[in-house]
């Protein structure tokens, strides 16, 4: 690791002040992503400010939903009564990620700001526009079986790795952010992360020095019918090839509301709006789930090695919606939830 200054911030203004004043300074949450990337020499901050002692670790009920603190850990969040009861989709997604030890360290703010797991990004001897703008994208014509099938550009075909974020996208969360001089703003989850375009070095729309302080979950009626399905190469402790956060509100068997978000397919959590649209007012049947999934995947643009993701995503959407209809109960759906990729 390269040398860096370290301090533990005791209040947000100090933390934001330090990072804003130094273009190569960074906040440090649980460190599970940043410390790893610093060991790999992929990220080279000259200064770190620890934010885990800030007063943003609460999960609170609000009139219009629930607020989860940015410095609360992933474990604390997934196991909080309010989240388990009212937003089980979020608990399931968090618990599908990493390992118990990592979830105990990882903060919610850090989770949203974790970097891609693209192997070219991780290897400093390879070209990568995200790590070093202008060097080219190693994956575009390289090994890209884990890469995007939606929304990529010639500059970057990486996917966004967080499971938690896929659930937050489905739940229409709002991210609360604080900048210098106590300026605060709220960002709709759909606008938090971005597509790579010409600037893959930016994963999201946070400005340098802006601190995520909390994430707001609006009230919804999805708790009875929601499910997070994660497809990976081994059954635990692995990133998703494809994941689906699915949630429904039905009247009898008629679909009143539906949310579908996909992980492992794009530079940001991908809301399957075409499939959602298609399903409103229809019957909740397997045939309709399949048709909706097909409508969404028609627009997929797979790369050379990830064509398998198109079929896999369609099946995963169908299965996740069925899982949600069955009350999101694990076991009902899991007979063969892990799959090896035989493309």
């Amino acid at each position, binding site marked *: *690791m390269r*040398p*860096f*200054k*370290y301090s*533990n911030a005791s209040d947000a203004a100090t933390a934001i002040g330090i990072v804003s004043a130094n273009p190569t300074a960074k906040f*440090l949450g*649980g*460190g*599970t992503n940043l*410390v*790893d990337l610093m*060991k*790999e020499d992929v990220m080279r901050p000259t200064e*770190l400010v*620890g934010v*885990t002692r800030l007063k943003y670790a609460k999960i609170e009920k609000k009139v219009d939903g629930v607020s989860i603190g940015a410095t609360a*850990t992933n*474990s604390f969040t*997934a*196991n909080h*009564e309010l989240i*388990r*009861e009212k937003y*089980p989709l979020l*608990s*399931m997604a968090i*618990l*599908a990620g*990493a*390992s*118990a*030890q*990592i979830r*105990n*360290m990882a903060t919610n703010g850090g989770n949203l700001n974790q970097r891609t797991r693209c192997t070219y990004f991780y290897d400093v001897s390879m070209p990568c526009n995200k790590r070093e703008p202008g060097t080219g994208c190693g994956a575009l014509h390289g090994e890209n079986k884990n890469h995007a099938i939606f929304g990529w550009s010639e500059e970057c075909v990486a996917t966004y790795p967080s499971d938690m974020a896929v659930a937050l996208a489905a739940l229409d969360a709002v991210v609360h952010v604080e900048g210098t001089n106590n300026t605060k703003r709220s960002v709709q989850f759909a606008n938090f992360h971005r597509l790579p375009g010409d600037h893959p070095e930016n994963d999201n729309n946070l400005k340098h020095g802006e601190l995520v302080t909390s994430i707001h979950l609006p009230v919804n009626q999805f*708790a009875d019918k929601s499910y997070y399905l*994660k497809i990976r190469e081994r*059954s*635990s*402790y692995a990133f998703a090839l494809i994941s689906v956060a699915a949630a429904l509100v039905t009247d009898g068997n008629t679909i009143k509301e539906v949310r579908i978000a996909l992980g492992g397919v794009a530079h940001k959590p991908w809301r399957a709006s075409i499939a959602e649209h298609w399903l409103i007012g229809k019957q909740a049947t397997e045939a309709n789930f399949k048709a909706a999934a097909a409508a969404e995947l028609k627009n997929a643009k797979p790369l050379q090695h990830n064509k398998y993701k198109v079929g896999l995503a369609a099946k995963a959407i169908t299965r996740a919606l069925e899982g949600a209809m069955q*009350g*999101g*109960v*694990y*076991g009902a759906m*899991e007979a063969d939830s892990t799959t090896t990729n035989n493309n």
Partner: protein
Amino acid sequence: MEEQPKLPDLSEAERNALEELMPDEMSEIITSGIKRRHFLKLFAVTGTSVLAAHLLGIEQLMARSMPIEQQAPMLIENGINLSFKVNGSTQRLTVDSRMTLLDTLRERLNLTGSKKGCDHGQCGACTVIVDDQRVLSCLTLAATCEDKKVTTIEGLATGNELHPMQASFIKHDGFQCGYCTPGQICSAVALMDEANNGDASYVTANVRKKSKSIKLSDEEIRERMSGNICRCGAYPNIVDAIREVHGDKAVAQVWQFADGTI
């Protein structure tokens, strides 16, 4: 009368086996304990000796703390003055801001029980318990540990009395080489608290049902322990060891010595 030195932590059967294999070394082992060269000799005389490997594993599993001297502050670029508790005793030292908790434990505090497997969060060999939570010491900067309470494998036993999880790992032979074992045991100890709190996992049937003190199935134990990789593949025995501590029933031991003793 001087206390009779004894071979600590060996069963009668293990002691007999040692005596048979290395009669010349036995008196030395009894007076000064098992040394590395004894293991090497054991390997030499027995080929791939199961017993030697087993004893090596036990060494890992029981790793104990050695008293270390308090160090004077050092002048280093980006030095951090740190005060935290490790296995009950307060430690004050100056560390490089880049130093991980794992390296601090191993290199500065002589607590070499915690192992460096991958150094990147992918194996769990470095698992320790910080403020009652299992975490990875290889991705924890020491600088973030001010005022925290760290428990390592060396801090689990009370004097000569093993933590029940350590005893259970021995009973169920929950290891071969022992490299992953300190991490496995720290992880399993913290897992018991998580189960008592009613925490959920990805394979919990219904996350919306929260109850205190849940009973973990083998599938639950495997999922919750998936952050600890064992290259020797001791998984079935690890699950048995955890099940015994977690449950209220003894779990049958599935191995025995060749002469039929256990």
